[in-house]
């Protein structure tokens, strides 16, 4: 029998991005012995890719901003499908979470009076994003990483051991969660470095594994984004919601081919960048939906005035929510007005002097120069839609982030509900701080109350070992993991991509079913030490099951909303707004259920215009709203 390293913890956090680190900090501050499982090295998580900033209504730049405006923007961006309570908590708590980072040593860019500077971003009514140049994600991850190191230093001073209360397991992948009597008892995985197995016994597990982007071919996501947490939760008996909503970032690089998918931050547009088609036309003016017509400029002159005088002019349409921009670009390309590489042109070079561009977008400038030999101060960029973020994820309690299985929590991209059908730029960094803290806090509280000791049964461990070793056992005679991955990515990209239709979705499900069978026969050569082929083979079963959820839910939802666009159902349908599609696992198959959305509290409802609500709500709901307003008025 293989040797298995065993550990006992109060709280195990799977994932070492912003959400995981924030949760771990909170659990450790609550006195719990905490483990952080990092698929990569400590501090390399995908959070570093977030460029724009973290949205928080601090009101440093425009004092009219407050949590209610932020809440409204978030709901509007998510097309009212958000879990209202999560959006509310997020808007209320984000400023505190940002300020807290400064006490950990973060250095945000400043306003003239020395406060944290805030920038404009698509979908946000006021300048709201705390930022550091365009490397805010890096600042965030580094700050949290350094906070954890500082906690370890405190523990070293107290106990002589840096890792006595909080330990990072770097380059470790979790392949199984253990559940006994509907309670979490621990998890199991392997060290990449040695290929040795490791078992954690713990009453509370926080999933913070990020998204599913690796299932798509053109994606900004790294190899880690294989939907591990989504799949672990499913197999543990929890449910996923909103999986049909996948955000395609409108502006990923489309040239050169090898860096296809790398994102060009939206702040390029916030700072004055404009989108043009191959005819040189600034085409976004043709794509302003009725819902937004009031807030967006109708002429180039007005749009240009907005950058210097936002109070008296309406915003340029380049700052529409990102799904609108993605759809517009897609339409232009399909109409034959795209760039040579199949995107459109994003231009800052003719809009600002070179020094200003370098100052405002330093890493963008650097990235394009290094990767593509393109000087963005001299020529336009070629950009197009790219898979970026999944709104769907584990269904959790909004206040505690607890999933349906006792002891399981989910936070960050792997959790669902907060962003509804579409996430606003900048809301993910604040999301992971706000709910990371809450998940850590409630996981710690749960660990206090949970029965001890927790034990994982030997049979369950043996089964996990067998599953993990199977691809190596089949050796090179099995299906190639690289070929399977590439087929899966192609399928998702072509058939479950930015624009969807019934026939394609049905075909995708057939192909996924076939892939699922073949993935059972995946085989790899080589040994257990740092063998990427083996790692991919184990990730594949997660990727395929999560892809199935996305495809099934996308087929079921017969409307277009946010990150889900059906060519055969191009309109938003108010009756669909009241429905969440919930995925769970029965045996090996994904089951889909419809569940009603929680009903927004009246005082939150009243934050909106009736005219605006009428675009989202059913007549029945509107009548209720009117009755309410009437009562308030009387």
């Amino acid at each position, binding site marked *: 029998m293989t040797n298995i390293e065993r550990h006992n913890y109060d709280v195990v956090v799977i994932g070492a991005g912003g959400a995981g680190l924030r949760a771990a900090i909170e659990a450790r501050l609550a006195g719990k012995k905490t483990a952080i499982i990092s698929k990569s090295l400590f501090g390399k998580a995908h959070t570093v890719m977030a460029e724009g900033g973290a949205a928080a209504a601090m009101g440093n730049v425009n004092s009219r901003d407050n949590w209610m405006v932020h809440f409204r923007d978030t709901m509007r961006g998510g097309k009212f499908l958000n879990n209202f309570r999560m959006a509310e908590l997020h808007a209320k708590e984000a400023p505190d979470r940002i300020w807290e980072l400064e006490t950990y040593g973060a250095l945000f860019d400043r306003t003239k009076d020395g406060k944290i500077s805030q920038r404009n971003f698509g979908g946000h009514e006021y300048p709201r994003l705390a930022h550091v140049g365009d490397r805010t994600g890096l600042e965030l991850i580094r700050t949290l990483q350094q906070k954890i*190191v500082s906690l370890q230093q405190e523990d070293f001073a107290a106990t002589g051991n840096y890792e006595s209360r909080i330990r990072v397991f770097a380059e470790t992948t979790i392949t199984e969660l253990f559940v006994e009597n509907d309670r979490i008892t621990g998890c199991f995985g392997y060290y990449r470095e040695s290929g040795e197995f490791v078992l954690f016994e713990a009453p509370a597990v926080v999933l913070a594994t990020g998204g599913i982007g690796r299932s798509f071919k053109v994606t900004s996501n790294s190899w880690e984004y294989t939907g591990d947490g989504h799949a672990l939760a499913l197999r543990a008996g929890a449910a996923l919601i909103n999986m049909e909503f996948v955000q395609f970032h409108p502006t990923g690089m489309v040239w050169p*081919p090898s860096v296809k998918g790398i994102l060009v931050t939206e702040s390029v547009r916030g700072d004055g960048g404009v989108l043009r088609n191959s005819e040189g036309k600034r085409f976004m003016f043709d794509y302003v939906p009725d819902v937004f017509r009031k807030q967006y400029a109708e002429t180039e002159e007005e749009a240009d005035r907005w950058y210097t005088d936002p109070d008296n002019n309406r915003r340029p349409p380049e700052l529409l929510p990102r799904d609108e921009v993605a759809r517009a670009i897609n339409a232009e390309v399909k109409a034959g007005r795209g760039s040579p590489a199949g995107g459109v042109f994003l231009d800052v070079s003719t809009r600002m002097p070179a020094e200003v561009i370098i100052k405002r977008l330093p890493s963008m400038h650097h990235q394009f120069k290094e990767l593509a030999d393109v000087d963005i101060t001299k020529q336009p960029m070629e950009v197009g839609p790219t898979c970026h973020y999944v709104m769907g994820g584990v269904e959790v309690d909004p206040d505690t982030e607890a999933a349906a299985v006792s002891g399981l929590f989910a936070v960050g991209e792997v959790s669902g509900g907060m962003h509804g059908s579409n996430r606003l730029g900048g809301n993910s960094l604040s999301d992971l701080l706000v709910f990371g803290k809450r998940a850590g806090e409630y996981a710690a509280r749960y660990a206090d109350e949970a029965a001890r000791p927790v034990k994982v049964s030997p049979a369950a461990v043996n089964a996990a070992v067998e599953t993990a070793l199977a691809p190596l056992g089949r050796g090179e005679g099995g299906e190639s993991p690289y070929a399977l991955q590439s087929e899966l990515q192609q399928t998702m990209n072509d058939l479950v991509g930015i624009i969807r239709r019934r026939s394609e979705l049905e075909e995708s499900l057939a192909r996924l079913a076939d892939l699922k069978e073949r993935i059972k026969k995946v085989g790899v050569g080589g040994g257990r030490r740092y063998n990427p082929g083996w790692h991919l083979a184990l990730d594949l079963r997660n990727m395929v099951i999560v892809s199935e959820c996305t495809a099934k839910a996308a087929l079921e939802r017969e409307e277009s909303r946010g990150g889900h666009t059906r060519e055969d159902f191009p309109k938003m349908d108010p009756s669909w707004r009241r429905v969440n599609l919930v995925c769970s696992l029965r045996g090996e198959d994904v089951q889909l259920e419809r569940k009603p959305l929680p009903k927004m509290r009246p005082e939150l409802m009243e934050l909106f215009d009736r005219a605006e609500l009428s675009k989202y709500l059913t007549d029945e709901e509107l009548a209720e709203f009117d009755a309410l307003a009437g009562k308030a008025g009387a």
Partner: protein
Amino acid sequence: MMGEVRNFRVWRGDADGGQLEDFQVEVNDGEVVLDIIHRLQATQAPDLAVRWNCKAGKCGSCSMEINGKPRLGCMTRMSTFEATETVTVTPLRTFPVIRDLVTDVSFNYQKARELPAFAPPAGVAPGEYRMQQVDVERSQEFRKCIECFLCQNVCHVVRDHEENKKAFSGPRFFIRAAELDMHPLDARTDRKDLAVEEQGIGYCNITKCCTEVCPEHIKITDNAIIPMKERAVDRRYDPIAWLGSKIFHRDQLDRPAGHTTTGVATAERPASSRQPDAGSPSTPAEHAASHQAQGEISMNWHREAPAGQAAPVGSDGRLPVTEFTGQMAGAQSPFGDDVPLPLPVDDINYQHPSRTDEG
């Protein structure tokens, strides 16, 4: 965009040893070295180990040595090589190999732990931090660091000297120390001393290799190491201070007199007025202490010794023997002919004991 076949050599092996293996692999327009490594994985060597994440030069995972130069695989364009050139890819040399291109970089995480974290200012609540952009910019430069550890890998002090690793933190952590030292609100005042005592910054001989390889173009040597060293030189290697420490009790001087006063001064100054003071002659209290020390010994060892000068020989290689052919009238000066007399007082080694009352 048709691909062409290029020659690649990749180091394969583990802690027990290994060798370079040759590959013929397709390369397309616009690709980078990491793309080629991935193609090798997908087509010829499925278990070829390599670290990578973002593929955009932002996470610092894919550090490797390409034709002997430490680089990020994702930021090295294939177009920078000749079509006929063999591209050789090896793991970072300074760290122990795990497998193939993956090395054990835990050294860096250990050093990170040994450096005291940001110390929040007492009595400033979250949300009340006020700093000026110009003051945070110096530290922000260092916070651009993506922890690729190329600077650590290239640093001569540890690259071929395993024995130095214990006492030396390396450039990555000198910029971290500098970042905290220059942080407008960090409450610790001993960052420079720690750099010397705990991090071994004295080992650095400023060859700037770290600056050259930094993919973020952080001016590691000029903006971090030299300012951190300057203060260190001032305090640690100043012969006066050294002599003083022989005369006074060690603990009176070892932590310089400015230690406590600096803390007070920082607290009184608003953050925005904090000047880049690295290397400047520190606080008045220290001045007084050094004057006192000078008085005790009557010698200004701190004076810069004049450079030697050649004798003013004529075209025939001989000293002029008469004042008619010499450069000046009269005999040559024993101080050197280019020294104006009387000499500036500060330049004289000897100090009259009575002058110690001044100031």
